[in-house]
């Protein structure tokens, strides 16, 4: 049975940070006063026109927004169906959508008088964006990164170091994103007085999921305007990859109440959904649980122990997902698909060859879904895929998988 549909999909979360049963504030007491402060500070900033004006200024002059909405003509011809557009967030300063959120949070940290910034990172894009903003504002920056990810995303590790950040390789668990987040939370509990935790995805305790979504919603807002300009109407479908889901919710949120717009989120199916511990598709293969401050779909065993996600993409191998996505899935507003490592690699190569764009492995998953979906659509169907990051960081991983090239 489907739950009653709300009048709007855009009003969440409620005052307790809930999207339906998802979200919430499941954190240690030490952090609670700070979480409440943060909620207040964010509400105050949101109501302050000078906060938005500062963010707009940074978006234009520092990030290089608006990012183009690009008609991928050869890919469209190749697939022979929907007219495909890329939202080019890979052209942002630092090479991904992550900077949109980081600049918002750093502005907030400055307003709250915090001098030390910590972050977790998987692919390293959020770490690079955070290190960048900290360099710009002269803040101390400590980035937690799973030791496995440090190895597979070396270019980003080097970039963060150049930008003055301290990188802490995390050795616990599977030594990837989940463990980096645990370690960042431990740092935060220890240094709560002077430290701001800049979370990279639309997950964690309230108000992070809503706050990160708001900062990323610039992607969807621009897409609306640009598509109106290019085609005189809204797109027919949106496609974005999902780890925690910040680029996706940023693109989706402004369109949630346009019920004619089909929305597709693409999880990482790794070695395949049928392979135990072989994927990172928490919606397809998980159940509701509580981790890292929120209730959401999690990959776990029957005892509630969290499983390690797997994906070729370091940005997607998280065993959870942002709580708003969990809710949108249960509401049926967004359709969640998945793409395997293999399909993502094929999409990666196709994009390089046909469009002269080297995508990050994360949006290569979204592209894999586009490759499946587009041929089934008519030629006047307008499809937007969020090209949320560039693939420079992934060239070694891809080369390894393709046999050294």
């Amino acid at each position: 049975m489907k739950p009653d549909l709300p009048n709007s999909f855009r009003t969440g979360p409620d005052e307790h940070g809930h999207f339906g049963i998802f979200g919430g504030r499941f954190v240690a007491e030490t952090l609670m006063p700070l979480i409440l402060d943060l909620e207040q500070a964010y509400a105050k900033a949101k109501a302050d026109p000078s906060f938005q004006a500062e963010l707009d200024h940074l978006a234009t002059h520092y990030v290089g927004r608006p990012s183009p909405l690009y008609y991928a003509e050869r890919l469209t011809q190749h697939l022979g169906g929907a007219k495909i557009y890329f939202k080019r967030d890979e052209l942002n300063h630092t090479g991904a959508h992550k900077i949109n959120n980081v600049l918002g949070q750093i502005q907030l940290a400055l307003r709250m008088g915090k001098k030390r910034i910590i972050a977790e990172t998987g692919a390293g894009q959020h770490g690079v964006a955070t290190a960048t903003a900290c360099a710009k504002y002269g803040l101390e920056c400590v980035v937690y990164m799973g030791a496995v990810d440090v190895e597979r995303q070396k270019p980003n590790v080097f970039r963060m170091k150049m930008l003055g950040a301290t990188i802490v390789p995390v050795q616990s668990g599977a030594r990837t994103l989940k463990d980096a987040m645990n370690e960042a939370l431990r740092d935060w509990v220890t240094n709560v007085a002077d430290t701001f935790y800049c979370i990279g995805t639309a997950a964690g305790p309230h108000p992070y999921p809503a706050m990160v979504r708001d900062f990323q919603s610039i992607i969807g807002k621009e897409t609306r305007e640009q598509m109106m300009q290019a085609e005189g109407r809204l797109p027919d479908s949106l496609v974005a990859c999902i780890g925690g889901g910040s680029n996706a919710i940023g693109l989706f949120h402004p369109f949630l109440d346009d019920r004619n717009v089909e929305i597709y989120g693409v999880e990482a199916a790794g070695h395949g959904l049928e392979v135990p511990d072989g994927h990172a598709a928490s919606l397809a293969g998980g159940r509701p649980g509580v981790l890292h401050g929120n209730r959401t779909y999690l990959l776990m065993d029957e005892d509630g122990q969290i499983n390690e996600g797997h994906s070729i993409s370091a940005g997607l191998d998280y065993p959870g997902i942002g709580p708003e996505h969990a809710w949108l899935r249960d509401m049926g507003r967004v359709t969640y698909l998945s793409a395997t490592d293999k399909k993502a690699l094929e999409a990666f190569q196709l994009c390089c060859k046909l469009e002269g764009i080297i995508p990050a492995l994360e949006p290569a998953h979204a592209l894999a879904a586009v490759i499946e979906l587009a041929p089934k659509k008519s030629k006047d169907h307008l499809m937007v895929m969020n090209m949320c990051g560039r693939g420079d960081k992934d060239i070694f991983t891809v080369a390894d998988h393709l046999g050294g090239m």
Partner: protein
Amino acid sequence: MTKTRIDRRFAKTRAEGRAALVTFIMAGDPDLATSLEILKTLPKAGADVIELGMPFTDPMADGPSIQAAGLRALKSGMTLKKTLALIADFRRNDDETPIVLMGYYNPIYVYGVDRFLTDALSAGVDGLIIVDLPPEEDSELCEPALKAGLNFIRLATPTTDDKRLPKVLTNTSGFVYYVSITGITGAATPDYSKVAEAVARIKQHTDLPIAVGFGVKNAQSAAAIAAHADGVVVGSALVDVIANATATGSAGQDNVISHVSKFVGQLVNGIHQARAKA
């Protein structure tokens, strides 16, 4: 509310004019059988209250010692169901020593709150400390647990100021667990004078006993805390004793038990001396 084993135990130690020794071990560390023997040993060695950790893959408020203990337990096949069975086993010979389950919410949520409360009560659990359930999430487990007759013990921390304390204390029962540092378990040694101030501050808001933990490493630090608090919690240091004895022990279980017994005995001496001096 009827008095629980926890209430009775703190009434007893208070009457004796001393702080209670609260010991933490991880259920199933290093394995289920040894864990049961350690449980039986603790009260004999002088522990007043037992906190039993429920292993979890992602203990985000715990330091390296307790993280490692949880992983050892999980590796040995520990589950929440087995943890409850372990307590039921212990209760066959001990109906007095209070047992508080400590851990994270997800395994309980997945087990099912109602089913968990029923099974925990029948196993002989007295209270719960769930690190990632602040008062803001009381409807999840705290309120049903209180209704079922379990104590719900809350952590108060140096960041819990006078404005927030009433909110933290509202649904707290059994005792208040004061976390002496901002940080993870087993980290820095606390500043004892600040602990004394904090205990005095919390006492202005509640009549509940106040146990202090995080960073209590040996008889000396236990004594320093016991001078001011109603209870002293020792976790990481005890877990380390178990880990070291397991790693080096040629005599297996007996070796672990004798190390635990000796260490707890030292803590008891420290605590007894604390008030004698004062």
